[in-house]
């Protein structure tokens, strides 16, 4: 079973072994509105926790997407570059952004659980 955790920057992170998949939450895509452009990190790029490494633009505005933990990008989702509307249609599924190998897989548990993320949304 692959556990999904969340960041306060409205990203979801799903762990499979030491590789994590990152996307934006449904709440985030809803707040952004129609996504029209996505820029993703290239495989091989080393990212620090909290580093801006992708861009998502809706009709209204551009937003950064941050690496929730430190690691190295292994793959990105070219399908959302070609069809950015996928991010709205399936934020937590086919609309994933990138996969990266965590420098320290144990750091995964420092991220928010689903219950904690939901509680965090209540405070927003």
């Amino acid at each position, binding site marked *: 079973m692959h556990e999904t955790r969340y960041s306060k920057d409205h990203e979801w992170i799903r762990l499979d072994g030491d590789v994590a998949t990152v996307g934006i939450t449904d709440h985030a895509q809803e707040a952004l509105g129609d996504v*029209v*452009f996505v820029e993703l990190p290239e495989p091989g790029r080393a990212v620090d926790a909290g580093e801006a490494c992708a*861009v998502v633009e809706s009709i209204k*505005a551009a937003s950064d997407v941050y690496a929730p933990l430190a690691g190295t990008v292994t793959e990105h989702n070219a399908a959302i570059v070609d069809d950015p509307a996928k991010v709205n249609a399936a934020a937590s599924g086919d609309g994933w952004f990138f996969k990266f190998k965590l420098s320290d897989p144990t750091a995964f548990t420092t991220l928010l659980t689903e219950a904690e993320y939901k509680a965090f949304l209540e405070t927003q």
Partner: protein
Amino acid sequence: MADTPDHTNNLHTTPLDALHRELGARMVPFAGYAMPVQYDFRDAMAARCKGGVLAEHLHCRASAGMFDVSHMGQASLHGAEAAAALERLVPGDILGLRQGRQRYTLLTSPAGGIIDDLMVAKLAEDRLFLVVNAARKDVDFAHLRTHLPASVTLEEHPDRALIALQGPLAASVMAKLCPPAAALPFLGVTIAPIGGIPAMLSRSGYTGEDGFEISVSAPDAEPLARLLLEQPEIIPIGLGARDSLRLEAGLCLYGHDIDETTTPIEAGLTWVIGKRRKMEWSFPGAMAMRDQLDNGAPRLRVGIRPDGRAPAREGTTIHAPDGTEAGRITSGGFAPSVGAPIAMGYVRRDLVADGSTVQLMVRGKPVPAHIAPMPFHPHRYVR
């Protein structure tokens, strides 16, 4: 990613505020007003359109949309000398404006800058009707009061609402509700009831589509809006799509594409200078504008098409092929009806030709783009 907080406290509201919220609007502060930026439609309206900037924009181009623009400033100039007095403050031909006609013009400064852009309608020999930008109301009305002679009085109309109906099906809807409006030519103005509601209508708008702008008393705004929304062609549209529609139409947004530091010549608005006014050069900033017409303006407003998919937003710097900074984007975003990013901005005059190649600095990286003709989407005004 930051959420958009609801900073709608301490804001003015329009007479349609409750209706917007009932329809599922996301309200945002704009020019001191709580305004709908987009809608999450429910119930019957959701069957017409799912809502959101993209869908609302496309619905307006395909059918018709209703926009609440009650935040804009409405006022009358009373007096037999009203037209002559206003002409002393604008480059447009106001004396030549016929009764029942409206014209786009500019309040200009002695330095040739643009104080505001506005619509002027002639309702009678001794009455002009003005519509000015919400954020410039106070500045404009103070400017007018300072410069008008005692024989001309300015009457503000804070008690009036303004509703725009825009889109290719706007005229067929009005043919049912208000036949005299449907018979108006482009920039024609009339006073006629819509379903019994007294209204002043003009054949004008800010989307590039055929349509109407309807001024009614504040208490009549909601009944009129509900009557319009009963028509199956019409959905309400927020400020988000209003902005993308006007950008595709190549129309300026005050405070972004034009302001007190841009002249009408630089802004590509030379056409607002009336033929007769060009003989007299008797309006504020005339000498500065004449100098730019004779010797060339240092920069001009142009359309810009980024070559890739990345939108270039307001504030993005524009660079010449040799790398020198050559201008700035003043409006930019994704154009739903073009299916690509578009922008407008000011560039150095050696780069203004259509097809000229430029580089846009987007997030620190150069993005190739080229100068493109405007409008980006063809105007479909009634003839």
